[in-house]
């Protein structure tokens, strides 16, 4: 068993690209679900339209990178309005149904043969990240402490990613301490009470949906740029459910919970996965486990861990136990 490799990959996972992308997506979900109580099960679609908006602009139409970013942002906002206008006046579950369906529609359109000249079918789009890496201030080489280091391209992506996370967390902190955030939290508790106090509930829910989508879409840009490619199946529904898992793991409606939740989630996945594969190759496990099925076993074990966490700490890592106690009343 190569414990050194396991250790290094695990530590790298805690700040790696997946953690950054999922943290941003989860910050968005936390605004929508944690603070405003909106069940947006289509967060993957928000990241998808942003990533594709940018990639298609640059790779298919050969337009400038920054225009691609603007188009990605615009696509996210348009999607939020499309989903929100018909559903936000209705009961909360309608938004959940519509968003989960919309996310699948978006993914299937991206991978459809009909539009493959634009979106590239199931292969997706490449060759759009040149301008982004041209801005890289790091000279070629590796950056980090000892074996825990990244090359200059990854370092650049992670730098941008963590700066964006810091900005997003600052934004959430300021907003949720303000009267604006108070209205949002009140809507989560009881919409009709908020309406009876003269607040335009629909408008606040729409603002939360758009804001959560825009924060999430930054993760979409980084996902595409970090891999220098987009594929439709990156944005499947399980992406959204991982984001929800992360929010609940960290504790809903807490500023840093999506970030810490994302780090723990990926550390667990990578650590369990690598330990299992090392153990299989060292012949330490019964023959039931093979290189082919440890991927599934990994998710079983992580799932078990999350279940235990929710049984013994239902409020998540940062949550307040008193709030959970109120639900039981």
């Amino acid at each position, binding site marked *: 068993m190569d414990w050194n490799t396991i250790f290094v990959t695990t530590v790298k996972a805690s700040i790696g690209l997946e953690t950054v992308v999922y943290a941003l997506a989860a910050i968005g979900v936390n605004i929508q679900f944690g603070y405003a109580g909106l069940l947006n099960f289509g967060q993957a679609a928000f990241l998808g339209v942003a990533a594709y908006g940018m990639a298609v602009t640059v790779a298919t139409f050969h337009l400038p990178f920054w225009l691609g970013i603007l188009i990605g942002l615009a696509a996210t906002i348009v999607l939020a309005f499309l989903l929100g206008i018909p559903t936000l006046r209705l009961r909360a579950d309608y938004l959940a149904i519509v968003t989960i369906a919309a996310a699948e529609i978006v993914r299937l359109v991206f991978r459809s043969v009909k539009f493959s000249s634009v979106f590239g079918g199931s292969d997706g789009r490449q060759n759009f990240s040149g301008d982004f890496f041209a801005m890289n201030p790091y000279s070629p080489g590796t950056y980090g402490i000892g074996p825990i280091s990244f090359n200059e391209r990854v370092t650049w992506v992670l730098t941008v990613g963590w700066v964006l996370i810091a900005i997003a967390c600052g934004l959430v902190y300021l907003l949720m301490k303000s009267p604006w955030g108070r209205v949002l939290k*009140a809507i989560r508790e009881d919409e009709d009470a908020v309406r*009876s106090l003269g607040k*335009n509930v629909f408008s606040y829910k729409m603002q939360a949906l758009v804001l959560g989508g825009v924060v999430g879409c930054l993760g979409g840009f980084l996902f595409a740029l970090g891999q220098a490619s987009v594929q439709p199946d990156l944005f499947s529904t399980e992406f959204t459910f991982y984001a929800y898992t992360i929010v609940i793991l960290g504790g809903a409606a807490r500023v840093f919970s999506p970030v810490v939740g994302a780090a723990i989630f990926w550390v667990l996945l990578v650590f369990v996965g690598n330990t299992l594969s090392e153990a299989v190759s060292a012949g330490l496990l019964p023959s039931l486990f093979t290189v082919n099925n440890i991927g599934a076993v990994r998710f079983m074990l992580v799932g078990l861990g999350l279940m235990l966490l929710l049984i013994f700490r239902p409020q998540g890592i940062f949550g307040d136990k008193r*709030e959970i106690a109120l639900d039981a009343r």
Partner: protein
Amino acid sequence: MHADTTPTRKAAALAAFAGLDHEPGVPKPDPILVVDKVVRRFGGLTAVNVDHVEIQRGSITALIGPNGAGKTTFFNQLTGFDSADEGSWTFNGKQLKGVPAHRVARAGMVRTFQLTKALSKLTVMENMRLGAQNQRGENFFRALIPGSWRRQEDEITERAEELLERFKLAAKRDDFAGSLSGGQRKLLEMARALMVGPELVMLDEPMAGVNPALTQSLLGHVKDLREEGMTVLFVEHDMDMVRDISDWVVVMAQGAVIAEGPPDTIMSDPRVVDAYLGAHHDAPMSAEEFEEQLQEAEAELESEIEEKA
């Protein structure tokens, strides 16, 4: 108890009602709310069918009626929580049909709910602050600059503290609203509604689920609202409370207003007695009715005898 110390407003309210007809829809000297021909149907069922009713400014008006009379549906329509199929109503002369609930509240007509809606995971103080209107910090962009709303927030907090003091909730200010007792939640909901600065307060069953010890204090608070110049319209089942605090009573049955009058005589109005107990519940049987029933019974007996034979 509170009203006795400052009887002026009560006397004024009673004077306004003196000599009024006891018919449904009777015009009031200075109505704040005027309702005309409001109809609400749920499929084949007509839940509300109010022809005309006026609510006197500065008074406490009770809306009573048997279960299923449409009181809460009527309330929901007036406050924009449900839409009316037909009709119109004005508040301070302003047309309110089709106006969404939050605009109704901003216009100065604020309601509470039959099942209290305390915002459980917000503290008592945050519940109160939420009620204040025209908050600068409730705008997304200004929310990001704390300096732009801090001062207003301090003023709101001060006002909230005064109200919490009055409603004896000051000690609870930092507790989650979800941890309050049922009666305290009623008090909080009323105090929060006052933060809006309403002219007309609509209370949907303010006494439901409140223990008797708190009832007296709640009654006092409702009377205080009138003393401060507000108008109160409330739905209630507890007749003792209605008699104690209301200046005028409107009775609904089967969706329509069937009678109006002062609280001490309204319950002896024959229309109201009929509505609660059913028509002809105690009318003597006429000779023809007696004869008819006798013949029916005899016919039944005969047919039974024939069957056996």
